């Protein structure tokens, strides 16, 4: 069968299947996606949020802003607050809530408690989306972070650092690490600044393609000579090289209007802004449609001297009801929400198709726990921005009851992303009905 016919058939299948899609929501998504692809972002902030200074008093549109959400003012019409969602998969009577909340942040399955070699998690919502749609862009997904990870292995309460540093999981044993260096991220997206002539570039692309083919062949041959445990390790390599090979030879984002190469040695707030700008650029240039962003690692001890809060975030978050510490946390939370508002504003200001990038993007913001003192996974602070091509009607305060699983939200997003599934994680079974208004 020739390629032309095969892709024609695939296209026909999609076109024929559409009228049978179950909900009006999906049809609307499709109608808008003609001009702009749908994008999904998952944004993680560490150590929880003081929900008393976060959750609006009023329900529905034009919700009231609190101290922590004050920064949402200029973008309130683009952002919904979701109250009452829970990730019960992270609940456990023993300590380790930061690791559990972070490990299962996007997987919604219980993680195995271990500091050893037998880590086990599920597949994260972003990776389910990337597996379905990733091939349509250069990077099936991007993982961006701020903290580069420690140099020693003491993470938290009997849980591996894999759980506290990563929210994107390609599979139960394969966390996807964050890229935290702004210059490397820039080069990865747009290619290194190069003075090479086109002929040499072409030449090197040929050499590289030959190399990657051979690496794949070598790995496959090697797999026949080693035990099952080793083979699992080499499988990771095979998958990784294949993904890179698909990108090989592409011009990447070089063709897209790109920003300036970021500076080195940025302060923490500058680092956050630059990484967020690069994230927006990656979406704008359609280099990826799925991304995760970690503002810090689980139980981050980032200091906030620059807003007048000395001490370490995680240590402060165990406030025990003390007014000064709560005030500090409210300040940190407000700063975090301001950064999110900056990202939303940037997406809203970036033209895309007939509208803005925010129209086709859905950004889901949350933390691994409710608040730093209680460590509950029951009433998570959740912000949802953008419409994702009609998946979500933003600008409302939505309240859910009975510890509704956040996995239901992720399931809704996957369906809006046209992933063919009716469950997600351990407890996502019922899509959220009122998301699209």
């Amino acid at each position, binding site marked *: 069968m020739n390629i032309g016919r095969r892709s024609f058939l695939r296209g026909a299948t999609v076109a024929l299947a559409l009228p049978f899609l179950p909900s009006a929501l999906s049809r609307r998504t499709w109608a808008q996606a003609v001009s702009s692809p749908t994008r999904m972002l998952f944004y993680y902030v560490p150590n929880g949020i003081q929900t008393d200074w976060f959750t609006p008093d009023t329900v529905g549109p034009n919700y009231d802003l609190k101290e922590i959400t004050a920064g949402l003012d200029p973008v309130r019409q683009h952002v919904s607050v979701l109250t009452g969602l829970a990730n019960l998969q992270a609940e456990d*009577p023993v300590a380790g809530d930061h690791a559990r909340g972070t490990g299962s942040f996007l997987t919604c399955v219980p993680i195995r408690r271990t500091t050893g*070699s037998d880590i086990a998690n599920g597949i994260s919502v972003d990776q389910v989306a990337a597996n379905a749609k990733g091939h349509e862009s250069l990077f099936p997904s991007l993982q961006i972070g701020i903290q580069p990870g420690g140099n020693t292995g003491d993470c938290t309460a009997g849980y591996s650092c894999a759980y506290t540093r990563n929210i994107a999981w390609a599979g139960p044993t394969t966390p996807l*690490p964050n890229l935290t260096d702004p210059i490397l991220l820039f080069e990865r997206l747009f290619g290194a600044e190069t003075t090479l002539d086109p002929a040499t570039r072409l030449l090197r692309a040929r050499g590289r393609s030959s190399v990657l083919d051979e690496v794949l062949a070598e790995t496959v041959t090697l797999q026949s*000579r080693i035990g099952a445990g080793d083979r699992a390790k080499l499988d990771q390599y095979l998958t990784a090289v294949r993904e890179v090979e698909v990108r090989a030879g592409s011009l990447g984002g070089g063709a897209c209007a790109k920003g300036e190469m970021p500076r080195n040695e940025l302060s923490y707030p500058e680092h956050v802004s630059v990484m967020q700008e690069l994230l927006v650029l990656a979406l704008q240039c359609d280099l990826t449609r799925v991304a995760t962003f970690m503002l810090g690692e689980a139980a981050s001890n980032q200091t906030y001297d620059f807003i007048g809060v000395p001490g370490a975030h995680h240590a402060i978050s165990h406030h025990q009801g003390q007014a000064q510490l709560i005030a500090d946390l409210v300040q940190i939370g407000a700063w975090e929400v301001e950064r999110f508002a900056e990202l939303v504003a940037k997406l809203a200001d970036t033209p895309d198709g007939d509208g803005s990038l925010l129209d086709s993007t859905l950004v889901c913001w949350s933390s691994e726990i409710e608040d730093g003192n209680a460590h509950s996974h029951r009433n998570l602070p959740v912000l949802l921005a953008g419409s994702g091509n009609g998946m979500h009607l933003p600008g409302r305060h939505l309240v859910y009851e009975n510890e509704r699983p956040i996995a239901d939200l992720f399931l809704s997003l996957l369906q809006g992303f046209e992933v063919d599934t009716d469950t997600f994680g351990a407890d996502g079974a019922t899509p959220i009905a009122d998301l699209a208004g």
Partner: protein
Amino acid sequence: MPPTFSRSVTDPHACEELLTLWLTVLACKGDPTLDPGRVVAHRLNRAEYDNTVRDLFGTALRPARDFPADDFGVGFDNIAEVLSISPLHVELYDHAANALVDELFGTGLVPPVTTTFEAESGDVRADLGSVWDVTGWVLWTEGAVQSTVWITDAGDYTVGVDAFGQQAGDEVVRMAVRVDGAEVAVFDVPAVDAPAHHEVRLALPAGSHTIAAAFTNEYKQPPADRNLIVDRLQITGPLDVPRVPSPSRGRVLTCDPAEIGEPECAEQIARTFGRRAFRRPLTEPEVAAKMRHYGVVREAGGSWEEGVRALLQGLLLSPYFVYRVEPDPWTGPRALNGYELAARLSYFVWSSTPDDRLLDLAQSGALDDPGVLAAEARRLLDDPRSEALVDNLAGQWLGVRKVDEARPSAAVFPEWDSGLHASMRTEIAAFVGNVLRSNRSALELFTTDETFVDARLARHYGIPEPEGEGFAAVRIPERPGLLARAGLLSALAYPTRTSPVIRGSWILGNMLCAQPPPPPAGVLPFEDAPSEPVSMREQLAQHRENPACASCHDQMDGLGLALEGYDAIGRSRTVDDYGFPVDTTGELPNVGSFDGAAEMQRTLVSDPRLPACMVKKVFTYALGRAPTATDDPALAQLGTQFAASGYRFEDLVLDVVGSQAFRWRSGEAP
């Protein structure tokens, strides 16, 4: 069916001979009743990758610094089962291979380096002014802040200043940038709320330079006051300096294509460099595959160097380079071959690739001889590359790397700066290296008063400054032992105060292999925020009244309280963080009681768990896998040998290398 031998032995001499023979067989061939354990394909971790390319290319590049942080298991970052790989790794390997080959051939530019000095930190000197809102330095009248930087390459640099102003009068705040005392630029600084970046580019010779930002148009008509606030000074460069071919290029480019022919020379490189990269000779099909990369580029019109670039990239992206692989031809134990042993040995002692001598001994079969293996282990220990044991093994086990994690609050500890931090890191590495690498008893780690300080650290410790520049060996009788090093004490603390629990828990886990379990349900880390002034000792005592807490806190609190004489940046003190007199008495249940850090460390030394834990840590690191129950006999045997050697660290390394677990592996069905 294998032949069976059966005879009754009555002659006692024959009996002895047979026994000797059997023992010899065991020594050479291993004891079939012992399970040597199994290590899966081992991805090079960041330290191993950087050391490996250093030894392959003679490069000073450290490409793995940009790789994602390695995953940890059982306290180390070299545990094969835990080390995972992602597409990001592969892209960064590709990036690294390009940078290494660029450097080799001298193409591209010298990579610029940025050095930043935060104006409020101790790295910056000021004539006047004060800290501004924690993050900057305000010059409230005409004056300057300056810092000194050492430049290795002459060339163009940008000097940058992030600054803003308090505006007053009819002029905008003005700032002069000075390099080595000469004004190189003057900027208007109109920013008022947040710092704006100002930079100037200029040529600088190699050597030491001072860079300064000065406030030059003071205006004061109270209440109007014009001031300059400097956030940071930065210097970046060299810029646009072309590279010259690497001086160590001969290490990789082992032939001259003009002399022996272009493809012939490329093939020679594939074989010689390939043997080092794969840690074994390439098979003929492998050589042919690498030559295909070369051929593809040459056919497309590329130069010889471009062809060799592709060939080298093929080697550096191969799974045989990225992983250490030990194939399983059958299920069940087998002795490792010489190449596998060479790699295990060099990655254990050097965190790096085997050198040519080890590969030659593997090729000749000599390394299969336990005597030769031991002699080689000794040679590797005597090589400076064995400093890797301090960086990586001790780095994780004894807290050397932990020092990097110290993050004292600038508001609470204004004396803290990156210079002091760096001195602490240098001290602890030198302290540990001094005991471990001179083959003294490892127990001296906890008793020796010999350490290394520079002037900055001497002031911090309150002892006389050493003469001359840099570090000098000193004795501090009142502060012996690893656990009293300022760097470790700073890392095992909260940013604003000490935590006996953090310190005690770390000692239990890392020194006694008795990591306490995480706290049970519903227990809050009480000591983060005492609601009323109570001494640390009293808070902990209250905590232990809860039996659920007592089982672990009985073990760790005493160890931590013994260190309360040192504050959260490791200075001696007599009053704790809550204003109470320091009391450093405590006990380690069933071992002994003590008063102060020195006695506490002597008590640790009397605990048999300490040497057993040392054996376990070294064994785990050497093999890159978690010990299992089947390793107990081997660990017990090594413990006996360790005691017999007087707890000498290097002897322990040699004994681990000689163990069956190190020289054998268990196969698994493919």
